[in-house]
């Protein structure tokens, strides 16, 4: 076991896959000598050479397109977006070229698109977004949002080994803020499976990425007042683990869906619909959503604090729902 930060866990995961499988390579901006804007690929070019750590011009469509093309020859590219906010620049390649490839012409696209997303770092509207919902909406893609160092490493390995295109959102707030024991031996965390981060019986919070830690913090405090929160970390948000979602609802009968993404069109709506389909009769209260407000991410710290879902939001909603 080793103590690793979330970032270091991802780095090791990619490194190990590159050691293990010569068809894996990295492509992106400033990932070579610079080691990546967040240093995720630090040391990679020394170890693996510039052939397998490809620095590109500032051209996201080309990064994704070229990664897809390389995957057609049997390679497994890991394409980095310096900030996932820039994924809009490659949107057409992702949803039209890549996502539809297997369905319409039988060409698998075993590529990973990864990068930092999320706010609470005073990054402003273009360095703090949570774009995942746009890609959950495109059939053919898998969307992963790890919340722990252990899962980040296991999931990036699983994503690289997966034959499907995986969009891997690394929450930048978590990069260096969480550190945990991570196994040194090879392990994978399966895509499409949630985990119960904390068991409880009173109210469920279904969440992912940085908000998992907000929910866990709330759970600690609420436990002292006799409320047991069950925190379900989705880990993969496409495909969603319907069974895990249903199971927690059956257990507590009261559920909050919490995400840092904005409210309208965020996947809390999708999860609420799934709960309706899978476990309507098990509900003892309305499905509650705690999300960011419907706006771009504001820059100034007090504004960003207002924008983001807070610990106090979770506390308030849990108490309200418990009393329903």
């Amino acid at each position, binding site marked *: 076991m080793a103590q690793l930060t979330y970032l270091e866990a991802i780095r090791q995961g990619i490194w190990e896959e590159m050691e293990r499988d010569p068809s894996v390579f990295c492509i992106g901006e400033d990932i070579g000598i610079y080691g990546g804007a967040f240093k995720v690929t630090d040391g990679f070019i020394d170890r693996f050479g510039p052939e397998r750590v490809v620095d590109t011009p500032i051209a996201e469509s080309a990064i994704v397109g070229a990664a897809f*093309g390389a995957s057609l*020859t049997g390679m497994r590219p890991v394409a980095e977006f310096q900030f996932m906010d820039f994924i809009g620049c490659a949107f057409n*390649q992702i949803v039209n070229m890549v996502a539809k490839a297997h369905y319409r012409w039988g060409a698998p696209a075993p590529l990973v698109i990864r990068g930092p997303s999320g706010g609470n770092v005073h990054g402003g509207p273009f360095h703090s977004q949570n774009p995942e919902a746009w890609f959950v909406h495109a059939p053919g893609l898998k969307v992963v949002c790890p919340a722990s160092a252990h899962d980040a490493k296991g999931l990036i390995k699983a994503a690289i080994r997966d034959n499907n295109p995986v969009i891997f959102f690394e929450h930048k707030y978590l990069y260096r803020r969480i550190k945990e024991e991570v196994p040194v031996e090879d392990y994978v965390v399966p895509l499409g499976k949630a985990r119960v981060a904390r068991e409880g019986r009173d109210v469920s919070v279904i969440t992912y990425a940085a908000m998992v830690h907000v929910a866990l913090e709330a759970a600690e405090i609420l436990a002292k007042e006799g409320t047991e929160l069950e925190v379900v970390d989705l880990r993969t948000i496409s495909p969603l683990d319907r069974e895990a979602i249903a199971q927690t609802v059956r257990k507590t009968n009261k559920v909050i869906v919490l995400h840092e993404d904005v409210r309208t069109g965020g996947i809390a709506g999708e999860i609420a619909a799934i709960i309706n389909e899978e476990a309507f009769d098990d509900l003892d209260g309305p499905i509650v959503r705690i999300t960011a407000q419907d706006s771009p991410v504001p820059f100034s710290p007090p504004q960003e604090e207002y924008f983001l879902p807070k610990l106090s939001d979770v506390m308030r909603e849990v108490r309200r729902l418990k009393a329903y």
Partner: protein
Amino acid sequence: MAKKKKNVPKAQGRHNSNGQGRGDTQLHIPNSPQRTYTIVDHRLEKPSFTIRQIRKGDEVCYEVTGDLTAPVPPIHESKYLDKKQCLEIYRWMLLNRKMETALENLYKQGKVVGGVYFGLGQEACSCASAYALHKDDWLGPMIRNQGSLLVRGFSARDIMMQYMAKAGSPTKGRDASSHFGDIERRNVVAPISTLGDLIPVLAGVALGARLQGRDIAVMTYIGDGGQSTGVTYEGLNFAAVQDLGLVLFVENNLWGYSTPADMQFRVKDLAERAIAYGIPGVIVDGTDACQIYDAAHEACERARLGEGPTLIEAKMMRMKGHAIHDAAEYVPKPLVEYWRKRDPIARFEKYLLGKKWLTPQENEKLIADVERELEADRDFAVASPMPEPESAAGGVYCDSSCHEIKPKYAVPKVRVAKSGVATPRQTAVHLK
């Protein structure tokens, strides 16, 4: 066998294209330290005309100005093609043309789902270009390059079944027209409807091959309209910077749907764009199969030697509308007449007959042969079943049982360097 890299010839002519005769286009930037670029121009004629929107009474329409009286030049002798190869290319072009005629008839009989796209007048470009590819090379066809799909090993029945949305189509009914491919045998990337997107993908194919120790040629096309997109720039620039073997045919057929080339870009010749990417630019007559082949051959050879991309501008005209529904009445009639005389198949036929590589009887037999093949394909395609409705389900994801993914050419050689899994340097980052 690799040919020695041909030296780019010294520029001769001045920058004007009214004259007859060959000569490369030299471009100068006035009033600045002299920078001279050379665009190789293989054409035997260099017409100069402009298409403008003008008001004529109540209407606004397109008008063409320029000299359209020049006689049709002969086919340029090929440096590389022998008789057998020329006859093969000719046959492909015939198959291309007649297949599209058959598709048009099928459409009129109500057997086609959706529209039909034609490459009428562009058969030389589609067929002669793809003919230069080797087995390990890749092709990314666009909508009017159906001839290239035939050259690459798909059959007319494949394309017909695509148009008729049949269960046996290469996409099993899931996509239309030329939107299909083959990653296993024929090395074809399926296009999508948005333009320019194939360019970075084909560049990536070359990148993947290179990582497996191979420099291959990857060929794709873009139109005078399509090249306006941002992804065209990104893809081509990426290929250039990485020295990937991209052979890009810019098919300047003068019309992007109803928009003339003069409203798509300001440069005189699209080949000039090559300067901006730092790659060689070549102009060929798109209705001359020999010029197309020679340019493709040289570009592919460069690619296979790891010398990077080439931009080949093929000049021709789209002789039908954007799709079957489009009568293209907006095209000025003098322009249609000018290019009709330059029909690539008629020109090549005349060339082959003139060289006595083909007798009139052999020609008739060849044409009859092609028509017979198409008849069989047509009957097969018409008789083949539509897909079951439920066949729309499934295949969105690739699970572990449907594809085994491994490097196509060779397992990439991994270099083992001494540096270990060091902890990353604690340098400042963009956002803490």
